[in-house]
């Protein structure tokens, strides 16, 4: 899918929470959407999903404004996973994933492609969870099931709002690596700069609703950017194994070489 975000903007309570954002996330790759709390990441994702009408500009999918695409067709092409998605309904994992087939179902509930649920479960590596109650899953398993639900929509574009929140390190790494390897156009709002640096082919950095940087994380994520956007001093190192940027927070003492061994302060 060809996705173009063209000068899109919207207001909430009179303030422009997304303001003239222009971007073209690369097709078939994972794009990280970065920025501090309140930068407009979630709102931008909702605009891209077509759930919020833009007040300025447009989001174009294959050249068509996304808000003009009929709802059901849109839901077959774009899947959005919100932050903090929970339910009090006692669903099983398979039932949660089957919700992703709703855009394909007729009035009386027939779908005609039950294989999609199994495929999504398999791709998301969640087939072994299929018969378990959703409420009994761990945080990492829940996110995996949510992603399976999104995949059951068979979308061309996957939008994820902080999919790694509340996950432990291992679950964060495995989830984002898995999303990257799907090879599907994906835009994921992320809090963890190092995670984004390690996995994203492209990053968009938002600050107060505006796009302040976009491009390859190896070029975009600099000490200056982190200071300007997050107001935090940082040193950007290079991971010796992967060659990806690693951001260490805290000011570098004057004259320190950037590839120094970290000081072991943990032994206090």
């Amino acid at each position, binding site marked *: 899918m060809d996705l173009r975000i063209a000068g899109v903007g919207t207001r909430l309570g009179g303030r422009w929470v997304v303001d003239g954002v222009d971007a073209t996330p690369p097709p078939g790759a994972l794009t990280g959407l970065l920025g501090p709390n309140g930068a407009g990441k979630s709102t931008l994702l909702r605009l891209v999903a077509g759930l919020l009408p833009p007040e300025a500009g447009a989001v174009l999918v294959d050249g068509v404004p996304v808000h003009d695409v009929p*709802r059901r067709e849109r*839901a077959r092409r774009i899947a959005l996973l919100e932050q903090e998605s929970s*339910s009090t*309904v*006692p669903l099983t994992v398979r039932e949660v994933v089957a919700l992703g087939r709703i*855009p394909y179902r007729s009035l009386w509930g027939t779908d005609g492609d039950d294989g999609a649920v199994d495929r999504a479960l398999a791709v998301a590596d969640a087939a072994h*969870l299929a018969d*378990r109650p959703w409420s*009994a899953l761990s945080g990492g398993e829940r996110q995996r099931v949510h992603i399976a639900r999104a995949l059951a929509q068979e979308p061309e574009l996957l939008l994820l709002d902080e999919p790694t929140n509340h996950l432990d390190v291992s679950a964060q790494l495995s989830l984002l690596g898995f999303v990257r390897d799907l090879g599907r156009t994906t835009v994921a709002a992320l809090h963890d700069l190092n995670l984004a640096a390690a996995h994203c082919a492209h990053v968009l950095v938002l600050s107060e609703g505006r796009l302040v940087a976009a491009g390859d994380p190896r070029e975009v994520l600099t000490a200056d950017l982190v200071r300007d956007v997050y107001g935090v001093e940082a040193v950007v190192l290079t991971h010796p194994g992967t060659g990806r940027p690693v951001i260490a927070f805290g000011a570098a003492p004057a004259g320190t070489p950037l590839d120094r061994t970290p000081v072991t302060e943990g032994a206090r």
Partner: protein
Amino acid sequence: MTSTPPRLDNRTAAPAVRTPWRPPLAATLVVGLALLVGTVLVCVTIGPADIAVPDVARSILGHLGLGPAAGADGGVPVLVDAIVWDLRLPRVLTGAAVGAGLALAGAVMQSLTRNPLADPYLLGLSSGASLGAVAVLVVGVGLLLPVAAFAGALAALVATLSLARVGGVLTPGRAVLAGLAVSQLAAAGTSFVIFWSATGDSYREILNWLLGSLAGSTWQSVLIAGVALLVVGTVLVASAVRLDAFAFGDTAAAALGVDVDRTRWVLMTLVALLTGAMVAVSGSIGFVGLVLPHAVSAITGPAHRRLLPVVAVVGAIFLVWADTGARTVFDPRELPVGIVTALIGVPVFAVLLRRGKGSAWT
């Protein structure tokens, strides 16, 4: 460190709870409908006058023109026929329709508001409908009864949801508190209107509206409740897939292609319509809509395509038996059926509260 791939999910934890076995929908419905027919036939025989199931069947067949008429050769005696056809059958059938309608209304409200405690009675719709009904009865326009009850239910729904949203997000706990306030106000209004106007036994009449009673059921009640159930119930069952989409909230539903605002508005109005029709013929019977969806979804699972038809059938069976108990257990005294449903419903409400402990209910 870099050479070991990140571990996937922790698979050592064995599944603690297995999915319960869920019977096929068609079989469940066939069994349910058979039980409903049996319930109707049996409950018509229960009462002070001794009547057997074959008498009931012969009376019904006679009226449908499928058998000899009452009093004719081979037909039931005229007295028996009068008890079956004019007294008990309308009451039992009204009870079945009201039970089905209230159970459906509760199930749909619980999904639309994502509130396991939602129910036409707890959120004030039933009391609002009673007030509307009583108000037109006083004016003397009996024909408008269901319409006024619908208007009352809708007004109460809007009042409850607005009140619950004042100064914060709509949580299940706040919705129930707001429903309590609206319901008390409407109940006070109902009592006031009856006191102001009634000449006869106003206490009994007030009790019948506030606690619900099927004692006054006629074939007209069957018609009102039955038509509302068939029309609104069909639309609700046809909306099952859209209701499923609300499981993870409004945004998730919108992302699945559902027009969230329109769906909620239309379905809530239909629920108010259904509640209004049921209250118009029976007063405000509580807890049917609260209890049955939870009990039935334990068997059918939460998917609405399965849940809604089954909950309607089970609601019908439940209320017919509850009403049969209400009119016979303390014979010759008769209890308002709402007392019986409350006796069953309140313990279930307590269990739900306990189960919701620690979650974001308040």
